[in-house]
């Protein structure tokens, strides 16, 4: 479970201080699904980075399963990311020289698994997103939707407790968007991980039980019937 208390994030931009998050309090239950919406530059991605331990708040705490990510030393924070948190990015962020199989395996490298186990689990993850037959292809040989599905497989291959997706369909056309969302929702239902997604797409937001709207650094959460 996530428990964010008084999370504030300020940046310095030249001489000016920009407040991206302003005393945000937020709770996300284990296995819950939350969509974050808001205007560009409103702090959505910053909030996601706080949840993922990619950045630290200027003030406040980000507690995941009883551990305050904001207070963890870098090495332990890296370990939390390696074991518990999966990321899906808008631009897929696949390594262009590695095959789909190898890209998925990169998420298992920090877990120090043997090569054979890495290979098997990556193969299973690719099969679970419907790309078992494209494991030997490099990203350049895959469509956008396929690339994002590889990214989803990479995020989930380590069986994380949390999946954080930053505009996962932002670079996809409508059909590919649906294709990717169907995969994500199916996996969420199957594995019951906590699923937090940033999106501009209201159609996608309507499919989530909770929507957090962020503006001027402040968050308001509304429950909605799926």
């Amino acid at each position, binding site marked *: 479970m996530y428990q964010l208390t008084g999370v504030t994030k300020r940046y310095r931009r030249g001489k000016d201080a920009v407040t991206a998050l302003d005393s945000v309090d937020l709770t996300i239950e284990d296995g819950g699904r939350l969509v974050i919406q808001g205007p560009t530059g409103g702090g959505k*991605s910053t909030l996601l*980075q706080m949840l993922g331990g*990619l950045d630290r708040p200027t003030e406040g705490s980000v507690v995941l399963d009883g551990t305050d990510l904001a207070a963890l030393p870098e090495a332990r924070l890296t370990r939390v990311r390696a074991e518990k948190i999966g990321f899906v990015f808008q*631009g897929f962020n696949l390594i262009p020289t*590695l095959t789909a199989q190898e890209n998925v395996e*990169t998420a298992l490298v920090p877990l120090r698994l043997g*090569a054979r186990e890495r290979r098997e689990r990556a193969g299973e993850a690719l099969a679970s997103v419907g790309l078992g037959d494209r494991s030997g292809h490099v990203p350049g040989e895959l469509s956008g939707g396929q690339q994002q599905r590889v990214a989803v497989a990479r995020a989930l291959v380590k069986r994380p407790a949390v999946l954080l997706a930053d505009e996962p369909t932002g670079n996809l056309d409508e059909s590919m968007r649906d294709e990717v969302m169907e995969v994500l929702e199916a996996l969420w239902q199957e594995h019951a991980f906590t699923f937090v997604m940033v999106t501009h797409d209201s159609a996608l937001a309507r499919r989530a039980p909770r929507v957090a709207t962020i503006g001027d650094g402040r968050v308001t959460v509304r429950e909605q019937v799926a």
Partner: protein
Amino acid sequence: MFFTYLRRELRRRRKAALVVASGLALGIALVIVVTSVSSGMSRAQGKVLESLYGLGTDMTVTKAVEPPEEGQTTRRPRFEFDAGEGEEAQQSRDLVMVQGFQSLDASTVDDVAGQDGVADAVGGLGIRVMKVDGEFRRGQVENPGQGGPGGGGGGAVRGGGAAFDVDSYTAYGTDVARQDLGPLTTSKITSGRTFTEGETDAAVAVLDSAWAAGKDLAVGGTLTVSGTEFEVIGIATADSGDAAADVYLPLARAQALAGAEAKVTTVYVKATDSQRIEGVKEAVLKNIPGTTVTTSADLAATVSGSLSTASDLASGVGTWLSYLVLGAAFLVAGLLTSSAVSRRVREFGTLKALGWRSGRVTRQVAGEALVNGLVGGALGIALGLAGAWLITALSPTLTAELGGGGAAGGAARGGMRFGGQGGGGGSPQTLDIALTAPVSLATIGLAVALAVAGGLVAGGFGGWRASRLRPADALRRVE
């Protein structure tokens, strides 16, 4: 995963990798060529010095030049012939003198040998033999009784005079029991034999092949010096350049011929360690007054000509140039790697987001740079070996001039030919040496070390940048 990722990245960035590797290769090749040419120069200089000193000699000790006292004239050879009345006979005379008229007591050899750091010391006597051979002819009185005014009626004396051949050659009195040190080591016996240990006072001689050929002498022949007949037992040929002497005699015989009993002109010294040569020189100068010590370094300083110029170029401009290129290659490699990291911030940010530790990312970047460095090193070694091979194949001839002009040259030349003094002022000795560029294992080791260092420097630049990337910053920068 490490090697797969590394291989794929290098393949993807092969142009940049080639630029980095080529830069390093050029620098490393230059270092190899310059080092091997320098080594060839040293070998050439060593050959030159060896031809003067003999194998294994680190320095010579000679008597310091003493200026003539007031009222004294410079010593020079003097011939005295009897031109007795009525004689018209052939006259011949050998004048044997100590080379440079300066000699040391033979006990100096033991004094030098007793100095700390001296492994061996051998004395020798350089002498010069001047042979004057010819006749006086009496003048003839022509037209007796028709003398000029006031002439006494004797007529005019016409004709007459003297016709003499003057021949000069050098000889060296060798310590026959200690032939492993000294000038004779610069030559090889090509006919006959060398002295035996028992021939300390034997009337035997070894001749330089070039001189012997000119005199039509061979093994078994006889050389007469000041009335003493010496049996020619061997012919020696100089390894390179001129021989140290024309004739080699047992030391005692040379001393007797020159009237220099218990005297030597030169002490040839071998140090226990090449690092101690300067120390030994200082010790000899301090403890044995009145001596001049000439080390191989002193002698090397008198080498001039194209060998010296090329050597200076190799050790000066060449070394600086190669290290400058290498330094620039390191810098370019570092900057290119660093720039590559800048272009891959999203990639590294993603890996960090996936839980890759900074160390692992740094190792990946450093590994790529290291492989680049090693590829550059391999290319550089190949290029350097080819360059060195080409130089050796072409074997450009370098000329070494020795002891030409100047007091130092004179002293060195005196030391080298006979160890006597006063050799100065002679025309410089010229040697042609073929330049080679031997590549030693140490040079290859240096090249490999430079390649690894280049890779590490480049990897250090890139790795440092990669390790400082915070995942949020890396991802934010590209979103």
